[in-house]
């Protein structure tokens, strides 16, 4: 049941990243995907009675924090740049 929940969270986050236009909301949907993976890790760690899953979840927390710490300044720069705005459609010509 918990595994199904974690897959549901991951899929919802994936749809959010694909479907929404706002950069900040896409970032939050990425966090949702990480949370889904964390839930499955904790469920497996609890099933197999080992602490490796819990340790990995802890490391994922740190990685998520680092990701947000670097992503938010980039979003701020994008939003205050010349093209402005949080809409990803404005950056559709970015390549490579």
């Amino acid at each position, binding site marked *: 049941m918990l595994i199904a929940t974690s897959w549901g969270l991951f*899929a919802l986050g994936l749809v959010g990243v694909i479907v*929404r*236009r706002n950069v900040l909301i896409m970032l939050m949907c990425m966090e949702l995907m990480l*949370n889904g993976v964390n839930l499955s890790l904790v469920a497996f760690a609890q*099933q197999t009675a080992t*602490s490796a899953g819990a340790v990995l979840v802890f490391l994922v927390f740190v990685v998520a924090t680092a*990701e947000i710490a670097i992503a*938010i*300044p980039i979003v701020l720069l994008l939003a205050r740049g010349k093209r402005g705005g949080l809409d990803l459609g404005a950056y559709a010509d970015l390549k490579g």
Partner: protein
Amino acid sequence: MIESVLLWLFAGTALVAAALMLVLRHPMRVALALVATMLSLAGVYALLGVHVIAVFQVLIYVGAVMVFMVYAIMLLDVRDRSYTRRYSGLLVPGAAAAVLFLAILAHALWRELPRTADGEGGGAMFGLRVFSIDFLNEYWLHFELVSVLLVAAVVAALAVLEVGRRRRG
């Protein structure tokens, strides 16, 4: 009995709040829905007996990451074009791909279920003691690597801000 009811309740709340994230329009409401998801996941972790992870979920995710996100939303709260047009042109293909993805996962789960059903509910209770002893005895290298990653992220964030400052003059 009451524990399984609570587990279902928390998991259901997490899923409903995650679905709300796709529908709501304003980023602040999306952030609040994400906070609700994370809090109910912390409840799930606590019910599973992994209290360390539950505490860190609330402290790091809700306390640090989401507060940072809410600050960014408040900094950028302008009438943006993305507020009125919620979805990009990929709405239909994205939803179709998600349904396909979930169907494949459900098929895999249904096939694996008879094998995993025996091991259900191992009931391992991690205390802080077991967790930290394991963490610093076996996984100290990962701990150090992650701290290096954090330092690199801080330096990168400073570099990005420096670029912005130079561009503004």
